[in-house]
């Protein structure tokens, strides 16, 4: 029993160490690839695959989030006669939390899964060894462009999700429930600050980096065979998902502390 815990603990520490090294090498390689123009085409390709192709699904996610929030919150607010403030509630939730987190989860599935499957397959078919055998660092060639692309594009995609969430909430609120359009907009504008939007977008950098690094790491350490690749994809998604939530919590605490030191508490409605 103790032996089992012991070996598990040793394996755990070993894995953490390997992951730490991988993260460090990725940071160094990514920083380098930002200043060498030769890697720009690689980053560009990845941006196209990761970012551009994710736009529709991210927009759909955002729109539905806004619409669902409107449907769920309307009755409660209406019973207190506060329905004109529906927009504040929706927009704050979307911009600060739901937009970033759901967009990131969507990307963890769409992009993270593809990254792990691609790199995992390259790993089991010795293509990563082939990169090494030709004197190229696979982290520089394969991981850095993907991480940089994800890091830059996740915030941009979050803005899309926010935008569509806001529009979705607006349409349901104003058209379906007949809230006065001008009131909806002016309360929203008064309730949502630039800070809220910025917080959400900054989260995007962290989420994007986490998704890319975790997915690439899982691909690189993938076990042999089709089953190994499948397992790596599952692990990558679960790990990305958990770390998105954990980072979201940590960032919420940090940003709240920052906010409170500059501005006093305000009431949302």
């Amino acid at each position, binding site marked *: 029993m103790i032996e089992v815990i012991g070996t598990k603990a040793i394996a755990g520490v070993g894995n953490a160490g390997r992951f730490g090294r991988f993260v460090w090498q990725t940071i160094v390689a990514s920083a380098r690839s930002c200043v060498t123009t030769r890697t720009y085409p690689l980053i560009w390709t990845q941006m196209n695959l990761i970012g551009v192709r994710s736009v529709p699904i991210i927009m759909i996610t955002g729109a539905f989030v806004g619409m669902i929030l409107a449907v769920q919150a309307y009755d409660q607010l209406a019973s207190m006669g506060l329905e004109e403030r529906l927009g504040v509630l929706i927009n704050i939730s979307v911009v600060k939390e739901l937009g970033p987190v759901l967009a990131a989860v969507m990307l963890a599935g769409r992009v993270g899964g593809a990254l792990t499957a691609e790199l995992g397959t*390259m790993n089991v078919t*010795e*293509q990563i*060894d082939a990169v*090494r*055998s*030709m*004197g190229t660092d696979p982290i520089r*060639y394969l991981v850095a462009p993907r991480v940089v692309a994800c890091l830059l594009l996740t915030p941009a995609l979050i803005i899309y999700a926010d935008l569509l969430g806001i529009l979705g909430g607006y349409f349901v609120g104003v058209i379906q429930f007949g809230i006065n359009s001008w009131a909806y907009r002016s309360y929203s504008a008064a309730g949502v600050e630039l800070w809220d939007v910025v917080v959400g977008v900054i989260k995007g950098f962290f989420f994007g980096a986490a998704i890319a690094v975790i997915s690439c790491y899982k691909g690189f350490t993938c076990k042999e065979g089709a089953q190994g690749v499948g397992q790596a994809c599952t692990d990558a998604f679960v790990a990305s998902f958990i770390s998105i939530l954990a980072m979201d919590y940590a960032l919420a605490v940090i940003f709240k502390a920052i906010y409170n030191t500059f501005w006093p508490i305000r009431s949302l409605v």
Partner: protein
Amino acid sequence: MMAYRRERKVKKGGKRSGTSVSDRDGIIALKDLTKKFGNNVVLDNISLTIEKGKTTVVIGPSGCGKTVLIKHLIVLLRPSSGEVYFKKRRIDNLDEHELNKVRTRYGFLFQAGALFDSLSVAENITFPIRQHYKIKDWSEVEELVKTKLAMVGLDGFQNFYPANLSGGQRKRVALARAIALNPEVVLYDEPTTGLDPIRADVINELILKLQRELGVTSVAVTHDMTSAYKIADRIIMLHHGKIIADGNAEHIRNHPHPVVQQFINGQVNEDDLAVLRASGTIFQAQFLPRDFEE
């Protein structure tokens, strides 16, 4: 002239001036090398010196650790214990960054090709060039790709993707990629497996030509004795993690060890046939129609 063309000239010059001292010490050396995967000892305390400008062929039954051995020569695998030297410099303890500089001197043909399936044939072959040189004149690179592909009989396949090639074609593209940087040492993992006899002979000629004209040092793993006899200056046989025979083709042909004789003549050991000889085993091993009847 372009940088990667020039480099070959430098190497050629280097070979001429590199006198017998380094030749005798060998270009690559393994010292007391042991490799274990868990409890499975694959290579057991092997010492080996690869001579510069010679072709060394490694033979041995499937699963005996030939691929593992050849990967240690370029430190794609790190030894469990023991040392690897390249030009008298210890390389098995270098970090990946340092190793990458050493690896540009090598070409490595993977047993399964390991072509990048997201890149076309031409992009695969230019990969090492693009990684290590700034290309100013693409037409010259195109010319180079054409030459390398022609060497393996695949000119015209530049824009194909690996998925659209046959196994043997992939192997040949991988070979063209391995020699793209005009390496000093080429490691071939089964260069002729999966090729028809005529094509296999063309590859043998290619290996010989690289050795004769460019002074390339080759290490080839193979099961194909025809190829081994043709290209080898020296043949090494691996068995149960040890070198059991080491010498030129003549030496191997007349080697007294029964395992060597069985291997080179393709004779089966009676023990291995025991299962097949035992009456009724084939019958037992069949799924019979009645297994699926209701």
